[in-house]
Protein backbone atom coordinates (compact mmCIF):
# COMPACT_ATOMS: atom_id res chain seq x y z
CA UNK A 1 0.00 0.00 0.00
CA UNK A 2 2.73 2.39 1.07
CA UNK A 3 4.73 1.36 -1.97
CA UNK A 4 1.84 2.23 -4.25
CA UNK A 5 1.36 5.53 -2.53
CA UNK A 6 5.03 6.41 -3.04
CA UNK A 7 4.79 5.39 -6.66
CA UNK A 8 1.73 7.54 -7.20
CA UNK A 9 3.33 10.54 -5.54
CA UNK A 10 6.50 10.05 -7.57
CA UNK A 11 4.54 9.84 -10.81
CA UNK A 12 2.49 12.92 -10.03
CA UNK A 13 5.45 15.04 -8.97
CA UNK A 14 7.61 13.97 -11.87
CA UNK A 15 4.92 14.54 -14.48
CA UNK A 16 5.73 18.20 -15.13
CA UNK A 17 9.39 17.32 -15.40
CA UNK A 18 9.06 14.61 -17.99
CA UNK A 19 6.75 16.60 -20.24
CA UNK A 20 8.86 17.41 -23.29
CA UNK A 21 9.98 21.00 -23.23
CA UNK A 22 8.98 23.32 -25.99
CA UNK A 23 12.27 24.15 -27.64
CA UNK A 24 11.58 27.80 -27.30
CA UNK A 25 14.58 30.03 -27.13
CA UNK A 26 14.88 33.74 -27.52
CA UNK A 27 13.68 34.46 -31.02
CA UNK A 28 14.08 38.20 -30.58
CA UNK A 29 14.94 38.54 -34.20
CA UNK A 30 11.74 37.14 -35.55
CA UNK A 31 8.25 38.39 -35.84
CA UNK A 32 6.09 35.51 -34.77
CA UNK A 33 4.93 35.24 -38.34
CA UNK A 34 2.58 32.36 -37.82
CA UNK A 35 0.86 33.75 -34.74
CA UNK A 36 -2.67 34.98 -35.42
CA UNK A 37 -2.62 37.53 -32.61
CA UNK A 38 0.60 39.07 -33.90
CA UNK A 39 -0.79 39.11 -37.43
CA UNK A 40 -3.89 40.93 -36.22
CA UNK A 41 -1.90 43.50 -34.27
CA UNK A 42 0.34 44.19 -37.23
CA UNK A 43 -2.62 44.40 -39.58
CA UNK A 44 -4.46 46.75 -37.23
CA UNK A 45 -1.42 49.03 -37.06
CA UNK A 46 -1.24 49.12 -40.84
CA UNK A 47 -4.92 49.97 -41.05
CA UNK A 48 -4.48 52.81 -38.57
CA UNK A 49 -1.62 54.19 -40.62
CA UNK A 50 -3.88 54.16 -43.70
CA UNK A 51 -6.68 55.87 -41.84
CA UNK A 52 -8.93 52.80 -41.84
CA UNK A 53 -9.81 53.19 -38.21
CA UNK A 54 -13.08 51.28 -38.11
CA UNK A 55 -11.48 48.19 -39.55
CA UNK A 56 -8.58 48.51 -37.12
CA UNK A 57 -11.02 48.76 -34.24
CA UNK A 58 -12.82 45.63 -35.33
CA UNK A 59 -9.59 43.66 -35.51
CA UNK A 60 -8.74 44.28 -31.86
CA UNK A 61 -12.24 44.02 -30.48
CA UNK A 62 -11.80 40.63 -28.87
CA UNK A 63 -9.47 40.80 -25.90
CA UNK A 64 -9.31 37.08 -25.39
CA UNK A 65 -7.56 36.62 -28.71
CA UNK A 66 -4.42 38.26 -27.39
CA UNK A 67 -1.76 37.26 -24.91
CA UNK A 68 -1.45 39.17 -21.66
CA UNK A 69 1.83 40.75 -22.80
CA UNK A 70 0.02 42.09 -25.89
CA UNK A 71 -2.80 43.79 -24.04
CA UNK A 72 -1.03 47.12 -23.73
CA UNK A 73 -0.49 47.26 -27.48
CA UNK A 74 -4.04 46.17 -28.16
CA UNK A 75 -5.38 48.87 -25.85
CA UNK A 76 -3.24 51.44 -27.63
CA UNK A 77 -4.58 50.43 -31.04
CA UNK A 78 -8.14 50.34 -29.78
CA UNK A 79 -7.88 53.73 -28.12
CA UNK A 80 -6.28 55.28 -31.19
CA UNK A 81 -8.89 53.85 -33.52
CA UNK A 82 -11.65 54.99 -31.21
CA UNK A 83 -10.28 58.54 -31.01
CA UNK A 84 -10.08 58.80 -34.78
CA UNK A 85 -13.35 57.12 -35.59
CA UNK A 86 -15.83 58.00 -32.88
CA UNK A 87 -17.46 60.95 -31.22
CA UNK A 88 -15.89 62.27 -28.07
CA UNK A 89 -18.96 61.35 -26.09
CA UNK A 90 -18.58 57.68 -26.86
CA UNK A 91 -17.60 55.56 -23.91
CA UNK A 92 -14.94 53.86 -26.00
CA UNK A 93 -13.10 57.16 -26.17
CA UNK A 94 -13.19 57.66 -22.43
CA UNK A 95 -12.18 54.05 -21.91
CA UNK A 96 -9.33 54.63 -24.33
CA UNK A 97 -7.96 57.61 -22.43
CA UNK A 98 -8.31 55.67 -19.17
CA UNK A 99 -6.35 52.75 -20.62
CA UNK A 100 -3.59 55.00 -21.89
CA UNK A 101 -3.32 56.89 -18.60
CA UNK A 102 -3.12 53.59 -16.80
CA UNK A 103 -0.39 52.29 -19.10
CA UNK A 104 1.55 55.52 -18.76
CA UNK A 105 1.89 54.87 -15.03
CA UNK A 106 4.32 52.05 -15.76
CA UNK A 107 5.75 53.56 -18.91
CA UNK A 108 6.18 57.21 -18.10
CA UNK A 109 7.33 59.56 -20.79
CA UNK A 110 6.48 57.08 -23.56
CA UNK A 111 6.03 59.35 -26.58
CA UNK A 112 3.63 57.08 -28.42
CA UNK A 113 1.30 56.65 -25.43
CA UNK A 114 1.49 60.37 -24.72
CA UNK A 115 0.78 61.36 -28.30
CA UNK A 116 -2.22 59.06 -28.50
CA UNK A 117 -3.50 60.29 -25.17
CA UNK A 118 -3.19 63.81 -26.53
CA UNK A 119 -5.28 62.76 -29.52
CA UNK A 120 -7.95 61.62 -27.07
CA UNK A 121 -7.69 64.82 -25.03
CA UNK A 122 -7.90 66.89 -28.19
CA UNK A 123 -11.41 65.62 -28.80
CA UNK A 124 -12.77 67.49 -25.83
CA UNK A 125 -12.63 71.24 -25.31
CA UNK A 126 -11.84 70.97 -21.64
CA UNK A 127 -8.77 68.78 -22.22
CA UNK A 128 -7.44 70.35 -25.40
CA UNK A 129 -4.96 72.54 -23.49
CA UNK A 130 -3.51 69.39 -21.91
CA UNK A 131 -3.28 67.83 -25.34
CA UNK A 132 -1.41 70.82 -26.73
CA UNK A 133 1.04 70.89 -23.83
CA UNK A 134 1.87 67.23 -24.36
CA UNK A 135 2.36 67.51 -28.10
CA UNK A 136 4.34 70.76 -27.98
CA UNK A 137 6.72 69.11 -25.51
CA UNK A 138 7.15 66.05 -27.73
CA UNK A 139 7.68 68.21 -30.80
CA UNK A 140 10.35 70.25 -29.02
CA UNK A 141 12.16 67.04 -28.07
CA UNK A 142 11.84 65.57 -31.58
CA UNK A 143 9.80 62.71 -30.19
CA UNK A 144 6.61 63.02 -32.22
CA UNK A 145 5.85 59.39 -33.07
CA UNK A 146 4.21 59.97 -36.45
CA UNK A 147 2.35 62.27 -38.78
CA UNK A 148 -0.93 61.84 -36.91
CA UNK A 149 0.59 63.46 -33.84
CA UNK A 150 1.57 66.43 -35.99
CA UNK A 151 -1.92 66.56 -37.50
CA UNK A 152 -3.41 66.79 -34.01
CA UNK A 153 -0.91 69.45 -33.03
CA UNK A 154 -1.78 71.41 -36.15
CA UNK A 155 -5.43 71.29 -35.23
CA UNK A 156 -4.73 72.46 -31.68
CA UNK A 157 -2.44 75.25 -32.83
CA UNK A 158 -5.05 76.35 -35.30
CA UNK A 159 -7.66 76.44 -32.56
CA UNK A 160 -5.28 78.65 -30.56
CA UNK A 161 -4.88 81.01 -33.47
CA UNK A 162 -1.30 79.98 -34.19
CA UNK A 163 -1.79 79.83 -37.92
CA UNK A 164 1.81 79.75 -39.05
CA UNK A 165 2.96 77.10 -36.61
CA UNK A 166 -0.15 75.09 -37.47
CA UNK A 167 0.90 75.15 -41.12
CA UNK A 168 4.37 73.97 -40.10
CA UNK A 169 2.84 71.05 -38.22
CA UNK A 170 0.73 70.15 -41.25
CA UNK A 171 3.86 70.28 -43.33
CA UNK A 172 5.64 67.92 -40.94
CA UNK A 173 2.68 65.58 -41.10
CA UNK A 174 2.69 65.61 -44.87
CA UNK A 175 6.40 64.84 -45.00
CA UNK A 176 5.69 61.67 -43.01
CA UNK A 177 2.40 60.25 -44.18
CA UNK A 178 2.05 58.76 -47.60
CA UNK A 179 -1.63 59.64 -47.68
CA UNK A 180 -1.35 63.43 -47.30
CA UNK A 181 -5.09 63.92 -46.95
CA UNK A 182 -4.96 62.32 -43.51
CA UNK A 183 -3.08 65.37 -42.25
CA UNK A 184 -6.03 67.67 -42.74
CA UNK A 185 -8.93 65.28 -42.38
CA UNK A 186 -11.24 66.17 -39.52
CA UNK A 187 -12.27 63.52 -37.03
CA UNK A 188 -14.92 61.37 -38.57
CA UNK A 189 -18.07 61.35 -36.54
CA UNK A 190 -20.12 58.24 -36.41
CA UNK A 191 -22.21 56.21 -34.08
CA UNK A 192 -21.80 52.79 -35.54
CA UNK A 193 -18.94 51.68 -33.37
CA UNK A 194 -18.39 47.96 -33.33
CA UNK A 195 -19.54 46.54 -30.05
CA UNK A 196 -16.76 45.42 -27.80
CA UNK A 197 -16.49 41.75 -27.00
CA UNK A 198 -14.82 39.71 -24.41
CA UNK A 199 -16.69 36.48 -24.71
CA UNK A 200 -14.49 34.43 -22.50
CA UNK A 201 -14.55 36.63 -19.46
CA UNK A 202 -17.54 38.86 -20.07
CA UNK A 203 -15.51 41.88 -19.08
CA UNK A 204 -16.32 45.36 -20.16
CA UNK A 205 -14.51 46.37 -23.31
CA UNK A 206 -11.51 48.48 -22.56
CA UNK A 207 -11.13 47.36 -19.00
CA UNK A 208 -7.53 46.77 -18.07
CA UNK A 209 -6.33 43.28 -18.73
CA UNK A 210 -5.09 41.45 -15.73
Amino acid at each position, binding site marked *: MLKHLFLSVALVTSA*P*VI*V*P*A*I*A*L*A*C*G*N*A*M*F*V*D*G*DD*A*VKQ*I*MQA*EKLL*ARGQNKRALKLVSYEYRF*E*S*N*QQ*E*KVQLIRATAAFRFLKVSNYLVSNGTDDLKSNLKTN*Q*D*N*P*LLLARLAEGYALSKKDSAKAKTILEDLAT*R*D*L*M*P*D*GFAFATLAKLRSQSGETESAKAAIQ*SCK*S*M*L*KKKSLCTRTQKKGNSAPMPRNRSKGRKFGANAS
Partner: protein
Amino acid sequence: MVSRVRILPWIVLGFVAACSSASEDVASDKIAPSAIAVKPAPAMSEEAIALIKRFECNRCHEGENFGVAPPDKQCVGCHRQILDGNYEAKPELVAKWRSNIHSLPVAPSLISIGKKLRQSWVRSQLLHPVDQRPGLEATMPRLAMSDAEAGIFGQALVPQEAPEEVFSKQAAAQGATLFEKFSCGSCHSFGASKAGGGEFSAGSRATAKPSRDELALAPDLFLTRDRFQSGRLVEWLMNPQSIDPHTLMPNFGFSRAQATSLAAYLWHHHAQPRPVSEIPGRLPALEREVRWDEVFTKVFKTVCWHCHSSKELALGDGGPGNTGGLGFPAKGLDFSSYQAIRSGSLGKDGKRRSIFVKDASGTSLLVRHLLARQLEERGQESPDVRGMPLGFPSLSAEQVQLVESWIAQGRPQ
Protein backbone atom coordinates in the same frame (compact mmCIF):
# COMPACT_ATOMS: atom_id res chain seq x y z
CA MET B 1 4.33 32.61 -27.11
CA VAL B 2 6.53 33.42 -24.16
CA SER B 3 3.87 32.59 -21.67
CA ARG B 4 3.89 29.03 -22.94
CA VAL B 5 7.49 28.46 -21.96
CA ARG B 6 7.82 25.71 -19.42
CA ILE B 7 10.55 26.68 -17.07
CA LEU B 8 10.85 23.46 -15.10
CA PRO B 9 12.07 21.28 -17.95
CA TRP B 10 14.71 23.88 -18.70
CA ILE B 11 15.92 23.76 -15.14
CA VAL B 12 16.11 19.99 -15.39
CA LEU B 13 17.95 20.29 -18.68
CA GLY B 14 20.34 22.66 -16.97
CA PHE B 15 21.03 20.08 -14.29
CA VAL B 16 21.54 17.40 -16.89
CA ALA B 17 23.89 19.63 -18.84
CA ALA B 18 25.82 20.48 -15.70
CA CYS B 19 26.12 16.82 -14.76
CA SER B 20 27.21 15.72 -18.20
CA SER B 21 29.73 18.53 -18.34
CA ALA B 22 31.15 17.48 -14.99
CA SER B 23 31.42 13.89 -16.09
CA GLU B 24 33.28 14.96 -19.22
CA ASP B 25 35.80 16.76 -17.03
CA VAL B 26 36.36 13.64 -15.00
CA ALA B 27 36.68 11.49 -18.08
CA SER B 28 39.18 13.79 -19.68
CA ASP B 29 41.28 13.86 -16.53
CA LYS B 30 41.48 10.09 -16.72
CA ILE B 31 42.52 10.17 -20.34
CA ALA B 32 45.21 12.76 -20.25
CA PRO B 33 46.09 14.54 -17.03
CA SER B 34 48.08 17.68 -17.48
CA ALA B 35 51.78 17.25 -16.88
CA ILE B 36 52.12 20.61 -15.19
CA ALA B 37 51.25 20.63 -11.54
CA VAL B 38 49.03 23.59 -10.81
CA LYS B 39 47.49 24.41 -7.47
CA PRO B 40 43.73 24.07 -7.42
CA ALA B 41 42.10 27.27 -8.65
CA PRO B 42 40.79 29.42 -5.84
CA ALA B 43 37.04 29.65 -5.56
CA MET B 44 35.54 32.45 -7.59
CA SER B 45 34.69 35.50 -5.52
CA GLU B 46 31.11 36.52 -4.89
CA GLU B 47 31.96 39.80 -6.56
CA ALA B 48 33.01 38.01 -9.75
CA ILE B 49 29.92 35.81 -9.75
CA ALA B 50 27.75 38.90 -9.39
CA LEU B 51 29.52 40.49 -12.36
CA ILE B 52 29.06 37.37 -14.48
CA LYS B 53 25.36 37.53 -13.68
CA ARG B 54 25.15 41.26 -14.37
CA PHE B 55 26.93 41.10 -17.71
CA GLU B 56 25.01 37.95 -18.66
CA CYS B 57 28.06 36.16 -20.04
CA ASN B 58 25.90 33.05 -20.33
CA ARG B 59 23.86 34.55 -23.13
CA CYS B 60 26.71 33.43 -25.39
CA HIS B 61 29.31 31.53 -23.36
CA GLU B 62 29.39 28.56 -21.09
CA GLY B 63 31.69 28.82 -18.12
CA GLU B 64 32.22 27.89 -14.51
CA ASN B 65 29.69 29.63 -12.28
CA PHE B 66 27.96 31.01 -15.37
CA GLY B 67 24.78 29.02 -14.94
CA VAL B 68 22.33 28.46 -17.78
CA ALA B 69 20.67 31.52 -19.25
CA PRO B 70 16.89 31.49 -19.31
CA PRO B 71 15.49 30.51 -22.71
CA ASP B 72 14.50 34.05 -23.62
CA LYS B 73 18.04 35.28 -23.04
CA GLN B 74 20.00 32.70 -24.96
CA CYS B 75 21.67 34.12 -28.04
CA VAL B 76 23.91 31.28 -29.15
CA GLY B 77 21.55 28.66 -27.70
CA CYS B 78 18.71 29.91 -29.86
CA HIS B 79 20.89 30.10 -32.96
CA ARG B 80 22.13 26.57 -32.46
CA GLN B 81 18.64 25.21 -32.00
CA ILE B 82 17.61 26.79 -35.28
CA LEU B 83 20.76 25.68 -37.10
CA ASP B 84 20.48 22.14 -35.75
CA GLY B 85 16.77 21.94 -36.56
CA ASN B 86 15.70 21.54 -32.93
CA TYR B 87 13.80 24.79 -32.68
CA GLU B 88 10.12 24.07 -32.31
CA ALA B 89 8.39 26.11 -34.95
CA LYS B 90 6.94 25.65 -38.37
CA PRO B 91 9.57 24.01 -40.59
CA GLU B 92 9.29 26.73 -43.21
CA LEU B 93 9.92 29.39 -40.57
CA VAL B 94 12.90 27.54 -39.14
CA ALA B 95 14.30 27.17 -42.65
CA LYS B 96 13.90 30.90 -43.24
CA TRP B 97 15.54 31.80 -39.94
CA ARG B 98 18.33 29.30 -40.49
CA SER B 99 19.32 31.01 -43.69
CA ASN B 100 19.69 34.28 -41.78
CA ILE B 101 21.98 32.99 -39.05
CA HIS B 102 25.57 33.51 -40.03
CA SER B 103 27.06 35.98 -37.57
CA LEU B 104 26.90 34.02 -34.35
CA PRO B 105 26.46 30.28 -34.83
CA VAL B 106 28.75 29.47 -31.91
CA ALA B 107 30.78 31.14 -29.15
CA PRO B 108 33.89 29.88 -27.36
CA SER B 109 33.48 28.01 -24.11
CA LEU B 110 35.13 29.77 -21.19
CA ILE B 111 35.21 26.72 -18.94
CA SER B 112 38.94 26.10 -19.23
CA ILE B 113 40.00 29.59 -20.15
CA GLY B 114 42.16 29.89 -17.02
CA LYS B 115 44.38 27.05 -18.18
CA LYS B 116 45.12 28.65 -21.52
CA LEU B 117 44.89 32.38 -21.75
CA ARG B 118 46.74 35.21 -20.14
CA GLN B 119 44.93 37.25 -17.53
CA SER B 120 46.04 40.44 -19.26
CA TRP B 121 44.47 39.24 -22.51
CA VAL B 122 41.14 38.49 -20.86
CA ARG B 123 41.14 41.95 -19.26
CA SER B 124 41.96 43.69 -22.49
CA GLN B 125 39.32 41.73 -24.43
CA LEU B 126 36.68 42.83 -21.97
CA LEU B 127 37.67 46.47 -22.21
CA HIS B 128 38.80 46.79 -25.82
CA PRO B 129 37.72 43.70 -27.73
CA VAL B 130 39.50 42.84 -30.95
CA ASP B 131 38.51 40.37 -33.63
CA GLN B 132 40.49 37.28 -32.68
CA ARG B 133 38.44 34.76 -34.68
CA PRO B 134 38.36 35.70 -38.37
CA GLY B 135 36.03 32.80 -39.14
CA LEU B 136 33.37 34.14 -36.78
CA GLU B 137 31.59 37.26 -37.90
CA ALA B 138 30.58 38.31 -34.40
CA THR B 139 33.16 39.60 -31.96
CA MET B 140 33.16 40.10 -28.23
CA PRO B 141 30.84 43.08 -27.69
CA ARG B 142 32.19 46.31 -26.28
CA LEU B 143 30.56 46.23 -22.88
CA ALA B 144 30.08 49.05 -20.41
CA MET B 145 32.73 47.67 -18.09
CA SER B 146 35.16 49.56 -15.86
CA ASP B 147 38.87 48.77 -15.50
CA ALA B 148 38.24 47.50 -12.00
CA GLU B 149 35.46 45.18 -13.14
CA ALA B 150 37.61 43.83 -15.97
CA GLY B 151 40.32 43.20 -13.39
CA ILE B 152 37.92 41.18 -11.25
CA PHE B 153 36.85 39.19 -14.30
CA GLY B 154 40.48 38.56 -15.28
CA GLN B 155 41.34 37.35 -11.79
CA ALA B 156 38.26 35.14 -11.66
CA LEU B 157 38.69 33.56 -15.07
CA VAL B 158 42.48 33.25 -14.95
CA PRO B 159 43.36 33.00 -11.28
CA GLN B 160 46.83 31.61 -11.88
CA GLU B 161 49.05 31.48 -14.93
CA ALA B 162 51.60 28.77 -15.58
CA PRO B 163 55.25 29.87 -15.30
CA GLU B 164 56.58 31.47 -18.48
CA GLU B 165 58.41 29.24 -20.93
CA VAL B 166 61.06 30.48 -23.34
CA PHE B 167 61.14 29.02 -26.84
CA SER B 168 64.34 28.89 -28.85
CA LYS B 169 64.37 30.51 -32.24
CA GLN B 170 66.30 27.56 -33.64
CA ALA B 171 63.35 25.23 -33.10
CA ALA B 172 61.06 27.47 -35.12
CA ALA B 173 62.23 26.16 -38.50
CA GLN B 174 61.07 22.64 -37.75
CA GLY B 175 57.87 24.10 -36.37
CA ALA B 176 57.23 25.80 -39.70
CA THR B 177 57.49 22.46 -41.46
CA LEU B 178 55.04 20.89 -39.04
CA PHE B 179 52.69 23.82 -39.41
CA GLU B 180 52.54 23.21 -43.13
CA LYS B 181 52.48 19.43 -42.94
CA PHE B 182 49.53 19.38 -40.58
CA SER B 183 47.70 22.13 -42.44
CA CYS B 184 47.17 24.29 -39.37
CA GLY B 185 46.25 27.02 -41.80
CA SER B 186 43.19 25.16 -42.98
CA CYS B 187 41.42 26.40 -39.84
CA HIS B 188 43.66 29.13 -38.45
CA SER B 189 44.54 32.46 -39.94
CA PHE B 190 48.04 33.64 -39.14
CA GLY B 191 47.86 37.38 -39.48
CA ALA B 192 47.66 38.27 -43.13
CA SER B 193 47.61 34.58 -44.14
CA LYS B 194 43.97 33.67 -44.19
CA ALA B 195 42.69 30.32 -43.06
CA GLY B 196 41.97 27.71 -45.67
CA GLY B 197 44.23 29.07 -48.33
CA GLY B 198 47.60 30.47 -49.25
CA GLU B 199 50.84 29.01 -48.03
CA PHE B 200 49.28 27.03 -45.18
CA SER B 201 46.75 25.03 -47.16
CA ALA B 202 49.17 22.40 -48.44
CA GLY B 203 49.56 19.03 -46.80
CA SER B 204 46.95 16.77 -45.35
CA ARG B 205 45.12 17.33 -42.12
CA ALA B 206 45.05 14.54 -39.60
CA THR B 207 41.27 14.59 -39.28
CA ALA B 208 38.35 15.15 -41.59
CA LYS B 209 37.43 18.43 -43.23
CA PRO B 210 37.06 21.21 -40.64
CA SER B 211 33.53 21.68 -39.36
CA ARG B 212 31.63 24.95 -39.35
CA ASP B 213 32.31 25.39 -35.64
CA GLU B 214 36.01 24.58 -35.96
CA LEU B 215 36.43 27.21 -38.63
CA ALA B 216 34.43 29.75 -36.64
CA LEU B 217 36.28 29.27 -33.37
CA ALA B 218 39.86 28.95 -34.65
CA PRO B 219 41.73 32.00 -33.36
CA ASP B 220 44.15 34.07 -35.41
CA LEU B 221 47.55 32.65 -34.48
CA PHE B 222 49.10 36.07 -34.94
CA LEU B 223 47.69 36.83 -31.49
CA THR B 224 49.20 33.75 -29.82
CA ARG B 225 51.92 35.64 -27.97
CA ASP B 226 49.40 38.07 -26.54
CA ARG B 227 46.70 35.52 -25.80
CA PHE B 228 48.31 32.32 -24.67
CA GLN B 229 50.22 31.42 -21.52
CA SER B 230 53.62 30.39 -22.88
CA GLY B 231 53.95 27.82 -20.11
CA ARG B 232 50.85 26.04 -21.37
CA LEU B 233 51.41 26.14 -25.12
CA VAL B 234 53.45 22.95 -25.48
CA GLU B 235 50.98 20.99 -23.37
CA TRP B 236 48.15 22.42 -25.42
CA LEU B 237 49.70 21.37 -28.71
CA MET B 238 50.49 17.90 -27.42
CA ASN B 239 47.00 17.23 -26.14
CA PRO B 240 44.51 20.08 -26.28
CA GLN B 241 41.78 18.07 -24.58
CA SER B 242 43.95 17.60 -21.49
CA ILE B 243 43.69 21.32 -20.93
CA ASP B 244 40.24 22.00 -22.33
CA PRO B 245 38.01 18.93 -22.68
CA HIS B 246 35.52 20.99 -24.69
CA THR B 247 37.94 22.30 -27.29
CA LEU B 248 37.44 21.51 -30.96
CA MET B 249 41.19 21.71 -31.59
CA PRO B 250 42.18 18.22 -32.81
CA ASN B 251 44.78 16.15 -31.05
CA PHE B 252 47.47 15.58 -33.67
CA GLY B 253 49.55 13.39 -31.37
CA PHE B 254 52.60 15.65 -31.41
CA SER B 255 55.59 14.56 -29.36
CA ARG B 256 56.97 17.03 -26.83
CA ALA B 257 59.80 17.91 -29.20
CA GLN B 258 57.41 18.51 -32.07
CA ALA B 259 55.05 20.56 -29.94
CA THR B 260 57.96 22.63 -28.65
CA SER B 261 59.16 23.41 -32.15
CA LEU B 262 55.64 24.30 -33.26
CA ALA B 263 55.25 26.56 -30.23
CA ALA B 264 58.58 28.18 -31.10
CA TYR B 265 57.32 28.81 -34.62
CA LEU B 266 54.11 30.42 -33.37
CA TRP B 267 56.10 32.51 -30.94
CA HIS B 268 58.86 33.74 -33.21
CA HIS B 269 57.31 33.82 -36.67
CA HIS B 270 57.18 37.35 -37.99
CA ALA B 271 53.78 37.13 -39.63
CA GLN B 272 52.24 40.24 -41.06
CA PRO B 273 49.16 41.39 -39.15
CA ARG B 274 45.81 41.18 -40.83
CA PRO B 275 45.48 44.20 -43.10
CA VAL B 276 43.06 46.82 -41.88
CA SER B 277 40.58 47.72 -44.56
CA GLU B 278 39.79 51.34 -45.24
CA ILE B 279 36.83 52.86 -43.48
CA PRO B 280 33.96 52.92 -45.96
CA GLY B 281 33.36 56.44 -47.09
CA ARG B 282 30.01 58.06 -46.43
CA LEU B 283 27.96 58.09 -49.56
CA PRO B 284 25.89 61.15 -50.46
CA ALA B 285 22.22 61.10 -49.56
CA LEU B 286 20.04 59.43 -52.16
CA GLU B 287 17.92 61.70 -54.31
CA ARG B 288 15.17 59.18 -54.77
CA GLU B 289 12.48 58.76 -52.16
CA VAL B 290 13.31 56.51 -49.21
CA ARG B 291 10.36 55.49 -47.07
CA TRP B 292 10.02 53.53 -43.84
CA ASP B 293 9.23 50.19 -45.47
CA GLU B 294 12.53 50.16 -47.32
CA VAL B 295 14.79 51.28 -44.49
CA PHE B 296 13.00 48.95 -42.09
CA THR B 297 13.31 45.94 -44.37
CA LYS B 298 16.90 46.53 -45.43
CA VAL B 299 18.39 47.77 -42.17
CA PHE B 300 16.31 48.03 -39.03
CA LYS B 301 14.60 44.66 -39.25
CA THR B 302 17.60 42.89 -40.72
CA VAL B 303 20.15 44.22 -38.27
CA CYS B 304 18.92 46.35 -35.38
CA TRP B 305 15.77 44.53 -34.37
CA HIS B 306 17.80 41.60 -33.17
CA CYS B 307 18.47 43.35 -29.89
CA HIS B 308 15.93 46.16 -30.04
CA SER B 309 12.74 44.20 -30.57
CA SER B 310 9.22 44.21 -29.25
CA LYS B 311 8.08 41.66 -26.74
CA GLU B 312 4.54 41.92 -28.11
CA LEU B 313 5.45 40.95 -31.64
CA ALA B 314 8.45 38.68 -31.16
CA LEU B 315 9.46 35.88 -28.90
CA GLY B 316 11.82 36.82 -26.14
CA ASP B 317 12.06 39.74 -23.78
CA GLY B 318 12.44 42.58 -26.25
CA GLY B 319 16.20 42.19 -26.38
CA PRO B 320 19.03 43.73 -24.38
CA GLY B 321 18.82 46.97 -26.32
CA ASN B 322 15.22 47.42 -25.29
CA THR B 323 14.56 45.86 -21.92
CA GLY B 324 18.20 45.76 -20.82
CA GLY B 325 20.89 43.11 -20.63
CA LEU B 326 24.60 42.37 -21.12
CA GLY B 327 25.21 44.85 -18.31
CA PHE B 328 23.28 47.62 -20.01
CA PRO B 329 20.23 49.18 -18.37
CA ALA B 330 16.87 49.15 -20.17
CA LYS B 331 17.08 51.73 -22.93
CA GLY B 332 13.57 51.22 -24.19
CA LEU B 333 14.77 51.47 -27.77
CA ASP B 334 12.47 49.50 -30.04
CA PHE B 335 13.00 49.16 -33.78
CA SER B 336 9.86 47.13 -34.45
CA SER B 337 7.71 49.95 -35.76
CA TYR B 338 7.87 53.43 -37.18
CA GLN B 339 6.30 54.94 -34.08
CA ALA B 340 8.59 53.00 -31.78
CA ILE B 341 11.80 54.15 -33.40
CA ARG B 342 10.60 57.74 -33.41
CA SER B 343 9.89 57.42 -29.69
CA GLY B 344 13.61 57.46 -28.95
CA SER B 345 15.45 55.84 -26.07
CA LEU B 346 15.80 56.37 -22.35
CA GLY B 347 18.68 58.54 -21.23
CA LYS B 348 20.54 58.22 -17.94
CA ASP B 349 18.01 60.56 -16.36
CA GLY B 350 15.17 58.21 -17.28
CA LYS B 351 13.77 60.69 -19.79
CA ARG B 352 13.25 59.90 -23.43
CA ARG B 353 15.51 61.47 -26.01
CA SER B 354 15.44 61.36 -29.76
CA ILE B 355 17.90 59.07 -31.48
CA PHE B 356 17.92 61.53 -34.35
CA VAL B 357 19.40 64.41 -32.39
CA LYS B 358 22.23 65.91 -34.42
CA ASP B 359 25.75 66.76 -33.34
CA ALA B 360 27.72 69.81 -34.45
CA SER B 361 28.52 68.17 -37.77
CA GLY B 362 24.84 67.50 -38.45
CA THR B 363 25.15 63.74 -37.96
CA SER B 364 22.31 62.11 -36.08
CA LEU B 365 22.96 60.04 -32.96
CA LEU B 366 21.73 56.89 -34.71
CA VAL B 367 24.17 57.31 -37.59
CA ARG B 368 27.01 58.12 -35.19
CA HIS B 369 26.47 54.74 -33.54
CA LEU B 370 26.55 53.03 -36.93
CA LEU B 371 29.73 54.82 -37.99
CA ALA B 372 31.35 54.10 -34.62
CA ARG B 373 31.10 50.38 -35.31
CA GLN B 374 33.04 50.82 -38.54
CA LEU B 375 35.80 52.45 -36.49
CA GLU B 376 35.71 49.80 -33.77
CA GLU B 377 36.30 47.11 -36.36
CA ARG B 378 39.48 48.91 -37.25
CA GLY B 379 40.69 49.27 -33.69
CA GLN B 380 39.44 52.78 -33.10
CA GLU B 381 36.90 53.31 -30.36
CA SER B 382 34.68 56.36 -30.18
CA PRO B 383 34.75 57.58 -26.61
CA ASP B 384 31.23 58.98 -26.58
CA VAL B 385 29.21 56.46 -28.59
CA ARG B 386 29.26 52.69 -28.69
CA GLY B 387 29.43 51.07 -32.09
CA MET B 388 26.26 49.43 -33.32
CA PRO B 389 25.34 46.71 -34.04
CA LEU B 390 27.06 45.65 -30.84
CA GLY B 391 29.64 42.96 -31.55
CA PHE B 392 28.33 42.34 -35.05
CA PRO B 393 29.63 43.40 -38.46
CA SER B 394 29.15 47.05 -39.23
CA LEU B 395 26.65 48.24 -41.78
CA SER B 396 27.77 48.67 -45.36
CA ALA B 397 28.22 52.14 -46.79
CA GLU B 398 25.01 51.61 -48.77
CA GLN B 399 23.02 50.69 -45.68
CA VAL B 400 24.29 53.76 -43.82
CA GLN B 401 23.45 55.83 -46.87
CA LEU B 402 19.91 54.49 -46.84
CA VAL B 403 19.45 55.40 -43.17
CA GLU B 404 20.95 58.86 -43.68
CA SER B 405 18.79 59.47 -46.74
CA TRP B 406 15.65 58.48 -44.86
CA ILE B 407 16.55 60.84 -42.03
CA ALA B 408 17.40 63.65 -44.44
CA GLN B 409 14.01 63.27 -46.12
CA GLY B 410 12.19 63.86 -42.84
CA ARG B 411 11.89 60.21 -41.82
CA PRO B 412 8.75 59.51 -43.86
CA GLN B 413 6.50 56.63 -42.88
